[in-house]
């Protein structure tokens, strides 16, 4: 057993496991949120595996290409999917420092998500259908405040380590000081708002809507079908999981494996699954309590996230240094 950590590619194996974890568990998390939502709304849940069934079904289906598409339409779904899958190699969650973590610090990671968003919005505008245009535009309208808010949250949590590298942030949190700082609390609140906005959840966007006029995320996918649609949906599920993992890293890192010993990895994995279990239920609760905001109110919501995150940053200087 003691030999395993010295095995040079062990870190890479864990990295690969992280990627598989994100790719294959993301639909399950989605399913879990759906199950809790259904229970809270007195419906019979469709089951934990429903998103998986949807994906497999879409993958078997035929792709219908809309006339007049450009190469963006075809290229974006795999790009979006693999940006998310690739990001799972960069974010530490099973181990503190994956071998690829130096490739992207937290700011680069946000940039990567921004690339995914831009690509998706551009693909939605490719055909010139009114709803596609609308979706792409609204996505940017949400993002122009959530993206800076995300960055400000990252800056706040990186103030302890002085570095935006995620492993150093995690490391600085393990160095004794308790994570109950006012600035972190505010940042965590902002993160919840950003999370809901970025992942097209209520009250910003209704993931299960069937009314095109109110859609944001779904409107961008209206022209996709078959495996292409599967890649987009699956990628979005991964994005949700990745955001949760980032949140866990910054605000609830307790239990993450510091070394590479199998026992601590196992403990970390169990802790992580437990946190995701709770957080998934929390999302379902939020979605059951709140109604969708009017589209014109969305900038107010995201502005609140931006102001809170900036306030968190400021509070650190005022109260904690």
């Amino acid at each position, binding site marked *: 057993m003691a030999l395993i950590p010295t095995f040079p590619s062990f870190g890479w194996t864990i990295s690969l496991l992280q990627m598989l974890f994100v790719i294959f568990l993301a639909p399950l998390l989605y399913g879990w949120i759906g199950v809790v939502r259904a229970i809270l709304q007195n419906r019979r849940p469709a089951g934990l595996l429903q998103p998986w069934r949807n994906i497999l079904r879409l993958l078997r289906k035929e792709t219908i290409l809309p006339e007049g598409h*450009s190469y963006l339409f075809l290229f974006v779904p795999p790009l979006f999917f693999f940006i998310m899958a690739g990001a799972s190699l960069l974010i530490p969650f099973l181990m503190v420092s994956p071998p690829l973590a130096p490739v992207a610090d937290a700011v680069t990671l946000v940039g990567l998500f921004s690339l995914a968003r831009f690509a998706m919005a551009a693909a939605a505008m490719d055909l*010139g259908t009114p709803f596609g245009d609308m979706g792409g535009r609204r996505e940017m309208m949400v993002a122009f*405040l959530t993206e800076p808010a995300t960055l400000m949250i990252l800056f706040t949590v990186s103030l302890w380590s002085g570095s935006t590298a995620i492993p150093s942030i995690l490391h600085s949190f393990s160095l004794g000081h308790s994570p109950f700082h006012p600035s972190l609390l505010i940042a965590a609140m902002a993160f919840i708002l950003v999370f809901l906005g970025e992942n097209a959840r209520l009250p910003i966007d209704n993931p299960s809507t069937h009314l095109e006029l109110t859609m944001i995320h779904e409107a961008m996918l209206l022209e996709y079908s078959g495996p292409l649609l599967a890649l987009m949906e699956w990628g979005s599920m991964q994005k949700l999981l990745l955001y949760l993992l980032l949140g866990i890293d910054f605000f609830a890192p307790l239990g993450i494996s510091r070394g590479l010993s199998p026992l601590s990895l196992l403990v970390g994995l169990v802790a992580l699954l437990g946190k995701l279990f709770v957080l998934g239920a929390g999302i379902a609760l939020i979605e059951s309590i709140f109604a969708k905001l009017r589209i014109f109110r969305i900038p107010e919501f995201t502005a609140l996230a931006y102001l809170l995150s900036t306030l968190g940053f400021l509070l650190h200087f005022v109260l904690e240094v």
Partner: protein
Amino acid sequence: MTSLSATPLFFSLSTLLALLVTGLAGAWLLTRRPTFATPIFLLLSLETLALTFSGLRGLLAGSDIRLVLPGGIPDLFIHLRQDPLASFFLLLLGGASTGVLLFSAGYTKDMATKRVAELLSRTTLFLFFTGGVFLADDAYSFMVFWEVMAVASFFLILSGDKTPEVRRAGYLTLLLAHGGSLLILASFALLSIRETPSSIVSLSSFSFEALSQSHLSPKGALLASLLFLLGFGAKAGLLPLHVWLPLAHPAAPTPASALLSGVMLKAAIYGLIRALFELVGLHQLASSFGILLMVTGAFMALFGILHAILQSAPKALLAYSSLENIGIILLGTGLGILYLKTGHPLPGTLALSAALFHALNHAFFKSLLFLGAGTMIHATGETNLNRMGGLLRHMPRSGTLVLLGVLSISGIPPTNGFASEWLLLQATLQARDLSGTIQRSSVLFGAAILVLASALAAMAFLKFFGVGYLGLPRSEGAKAAHECSLLEMLGMGWLALGSLLLGLLPGLVLKEVVKVVSPLTATSLTVPPEAYGWAWLLPLPPAGPSSSPLLLLALVGILTLPVFWLYWGTRRGKMRSAPPWGCGYRELSGRSQASAESFAQPIRHFFPVFFSMKRHLPTPEDPDPVFDLSVEDPHWPLLYRPLFRLFIALAEAAERVRSGRISVYLIYSFTTLIILLSVLRWH
């Protein structure tokens, strides 16, 4: 002289002269042989390529060479110097103009010979004198080069359409440029004041070396730096002296717009950095000036990008986005000054390097985008995004190049815009080392606005690309669009390649930029950036944050491309094609799409203070309802128009003393003489 002739300075000088001669002779030749336009432009682009390499050589060697040439007036010599800062900006000038000139070789094909000749001579004049600005090493020759550059830019703008708007834009440019020059001159004069009365102010004391020896009081130094900021700011589009820029850059012909935005704004940045760090000198700068510069830059970035989102003409959108980028550069410069003055050389060097890196990046991607906008306008015959659309299908190659520029300017990895903004953000994060609430919160403000502006830029450029290149054509012109010529594509390709390389090899670029910054700040990064390998951005010591756009691209590429090729390459032909679903609405047309204004609407509502809006909403009883909305830069109604009215009123009041009778005028002269004499006596 053998040693001198081998230096980069000599090489740059001869290249610039060759450029001037080729351009002027070419313009003359063109009037006789109109077909020579393409080879002349190709030759010019080769010469600017040589200039690029001359700058690069000077930068790589870190050479610092001075040269004194006899001038026209006795006792007045032309001091020239190519130090790393000048080399860097020569590289920028050469790199951007090579692409633009290559593009011009194809672009001018359908133009009337006279106008091609005009454009040719003015462009080369502009390039020569801008190069001169970078090389000048005394106040006198600097001002000569600077003024001729300003005049050349005025004529470049006028080589566009002969309309009153263009003339007005050109006039405004000239006005503000000359106002700025006066301020620069005043600041030079301030610096030349010596405390020791024995030394006679000779013309040689206006060399930059002599000026940098000045000892000013803190207030004097602040005044000098403010004058420099306003003077150079007038040419860089500093708020509120920016009003000429969004009018002038779109008015010029496409290659000229690209040069004005890509190169001339950088000449102003160069002047500011040279003046602040060398002439006033870091030891005399105040940290409060750094804060001022930073806050102004942040505000300017936000202002610029918000107005950019509102523009429906592609060139106007790009012009406003130039304000954003200049704002980012000024923010970095101010941050650098603040850190350096408070004893934090490492983040200071980083911030300043990020600012210069961004200037280089902006020269490449903004020129690329202006050229792209030119091809859009040329291909469709329309100047408004609302009349374009679907261009990517007709222009897939140039459209892809534009897409690259769009990603770069939006600061999305792995492009160069991302690399420089990343560095700047890392510099702002070192704010915890600062003491003092004002300093910290101003850096915090800068960081918050910087990320906001960057996210808004993505929105503005999704509008640019999405409305222009995606969707369905919105006019007959857009339906009949055609791909641009090979030479135009080559020019854009050169700029795109430059952007790409700057983004993928940021470590190498940073290493050279630090060489430029170190002599200015008298510090260096403790660990040279390339120590960790060329593919990495790792500016701070090993535990610090790192990023590698190249590896990131490789990672996403390795994952994505096989799936793309294997899956879609084999199946694409077999996939069924159908009309877009559009939620059951089959009659898709260009008019059922979102317009360019729909992007602007939420921004207008959310940031009303940045705009001066006039809206007319028809009442229900209105028999002839018209909805009307006009949005304007608030500087016009709040500052400029009242100012103009004031001047006119003053001029009319002054008119009263003019009676037209010679006896009255003689009394005026006599009284003036008496007053002057009495002042002299009293003194």
